[in-house]
């Protein structure tokens, strides 16, 4: 059976892959955004001083 055509299991396996990658992606980009926000805020403060 090809991996892309497992019959009824297809949906479940690929959904799992999808949500797992989504979660990993979200986790990292959330951390990245937090970091960017803080750095932005600090730069602004430095400039206004």
């Amino acid at each position, binding site marked *: *059976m090809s*991996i892309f055509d*497992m019959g*009824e*299991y297809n949906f*479940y*396996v690929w*959904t*799992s*892959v999808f*949500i*797992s990658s989504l*979660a*990993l992606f*979200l*986790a*990292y980009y*959330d*951390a*990245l955004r*937090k*970091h960017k*926000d*803080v*750095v932005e*805020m*600090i730069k602004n*403060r*430095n400039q206004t001083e």
Partner: protein
Amino acid sequence: MGLKAIYKYGSPPNFYRFVTRLEPWCLYFGLLLILIGSAGGLFIAPEDYQMGDAFRIIYFHVPSAYLSMSAYAAMGFASIIGIVWRSNVAFSVAKSIAPFGALMTTIALLTGMLWGKPMWGTAWVWDARLTSEFILLLLYLGYITLHASIREQKKADRSASLVAILGIINLPIIHYSVVWWNTLHQASTISKLDSPSIVGEMLWPLLVMITGYMFFFVAVICRASSAEVLKREKRSNWVKEI
């Protein structure tokens, strides 16, 4: 590493520098491992004799479950360090772990449900392991909410840490739930003492995935805790030089 090294990295500027340098390595290495593991698990590993292709979910379910527990252990440990040494850095790390851990727990539960539905006919059952993993999710959420509800920083840290530390007791319950009780969830296939009850070609992608997830976890924590440390120290001198 001597105690001195811990003190050295315990100070915010050193921590920040260390963590910022560490992160890219962990990130790329982790992603690489995850890619390799996924390829191995999805394409190379042979079909399971009992479960057909659906078992491939294991390559995503197990790493997230494993990580949900280790992240909580790390969070508890960081909380203890934070309380004992009154370390802002430790509390930052603990606070950063929580959302990631909660996400991992949710994924573990969801992939578990996606596996359970076609495999055993039911998406959920209140057996010992599933229930205790659900409890873990609640613990994470409680931690995050508590931290967010208390306005004063130090108080929030310490109160939330208490919850984190109390919750550590749940970890052995989750781990041994399949040993102590009759559960729908299957018993461990990998243990420290016995040889694994799973064949080589199926095993290596799993190990690679778990390792990849761990490195990725470290990378995310690096980024998140460095942001948190920056935020807490925003008035001090070393921050101005970033």
